[in-house]
Structure formats: C-alpha cells, structure tokens
C-alpha cells in the first residue's frame, strides 16, 4: 500500500515542473503542453484524496472526469488561437505576440 503522501508529492513535483515550463517556454505550444502537465498534477491529487479521504461516493473521480474534459476543451481553443496567430504573424513565440499589449 503506497501512502497518500507519495501521491501528493508526485503531484507537487509534476505541478512545479509544469510551472517551470509555463514560465520558461518561448513557444506557445510548449506553454500549452506545460498547462496540460499542471492539469494532470491536479488530477492525481483529486483521485488520491478521493481514495484516501473520500466518503466513498466517487466525487473526486467525477471531478477528475470533468477536469479532463475542460483540459481537452482548453487545449483545443488554445491550439486554434495559435493557428490563428500563426496565420497572421507567421510565428508562435509568446514573447513576440504583443499586438494587444498596450
């Protein structure tokens, strides 16, 4: 039996790596991938808490299912926006996309 803390620490490590990726990646696609990593870290925490501390009604699993769906939706919208930006500016580096900055 693996203790709860180890799952939580795995989730925390994945979350920090995702944050590092979001902060450092120049390509917008890389930023989106790091965001997916963060979603997964949160999901691990949800399911671990559901198994170890839940009331047995599976609320954590249902919430994770909803999070997976939202993550899919956000990835689709993000990628579509990247395609639209690429069509107009011919690059997808996040530090060059400053049309709406000021």
């Amino acid at each position, binding site marked *: 039996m693996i203790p709860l803390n180890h799952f939580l620490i795995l989730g*925390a490590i994945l979350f920090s790596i995702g944050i590092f990726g979001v902060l450092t*990646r120049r390509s917008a696609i890389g930023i989106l*991938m790091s965001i997916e*990593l963060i979603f*997964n870290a949160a*999901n691990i925490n949800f399911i671990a808490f559901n198994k170890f501390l839940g009331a047995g009604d599976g609320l954590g699993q249902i919430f994770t299912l909803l999070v997976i*769906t939202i993550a*899919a939706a956000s990835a689709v919208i993000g990628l579509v926006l990247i*395609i639209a930006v690429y069509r107009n500016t011919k690059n997808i580096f996040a530090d060059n996309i400053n049309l709406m900055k000021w």
Partner: protein
Amino acid sequence: MHSGLIQQLNNSVFYIIAGLTVFFSICLVISRNIFYSAIFLAMVLMGVACVYLYLDAEFLAIAQILIYVGAIVILFLFVIMLTASIHDRAIRQVNKQVLISAISAAAFLFLIIKIIKRSAWQVNNPSGAALSIKELGKSLMTTYVLPFETISLILIAVLVGAIIIAKSSKR
C-alpha cells in the same frame, strides 16, 4: 509471505513509473525540439494513467489514454506540423528567465512538500472497496447530472468556437 512479495514488487513498480513520469516531464519542459516535447507529453500522460490504476480509478485511466494520448497529443502534433519551421533546432526554445523560474518553481515545490509532510490526514478507509464503473456512471447520471450536462454544453460551445476562430477570415 508470497503476497507480501508481490505487494513489494507492486510498490517498486509504482516508484519506477513515478520516476519515469517525472523524468519525461523534465524532458518535456527542457527539450529543444518541440516535436519531441509532444512525444514526451504522451509518455507523461501514460505514466499518469498508470498512477490512476494504483488509485483504483480504472475508468479514468482508460479515459486518460483515450482522450489525452489518443486525441490531445495528436492535436498537438498536427498543430506543430501546421506551424512549420518553428521546430528548428537552431532557434532558442527557452526565454531569458530560466534561472529565476527554476528557483521559484523549486521553492514552490519545497514549500508544498513541507506542507504535505506537516499535515496529518485522517485516512478513513485506506483499503476500502474500489468504486465500480457502474456506480460511477450511475452517480454521473443521477446526483451529478447538472455538471455533466454543463460540460456537454461547454463542449458544444468549444466545437463551434474552434471552427469559427479557425475559419479563414477572407470573404
């Protein structure tokens, strides 16, 4: 004695999977080639699906592989292909804030691990019966039917919105 050995083997397999997941996610964020990053993302997602299996969430593990690895990673690969000349090795893939980002991420990780170590969770049923797919589907259709329907509405909105944004604006 025998089952204890199997238990121990199971546990070490979990730690190997967790280590591989962390390794692949580090590769994901530091890889120079964005195409390899997408492949590493698929690896990470499969590792997380294996972690779900250890947490008695079989349905979510399958859904993870179907939705993430089967659909989202393919979508990422398509977009990488469509935005050509970006996955060039000569182009710098990380910005100038690498050091400060690494320090802040490590500090955040240290803080969270410290908090996790300090909190005393009241674990109520560590070896309780796993929730079956039947019960999960039943509660999704009765107790949690409102969030379920809301999510389908969001999916419809995303579908329409993605087509409208991606449509060529030339008329």
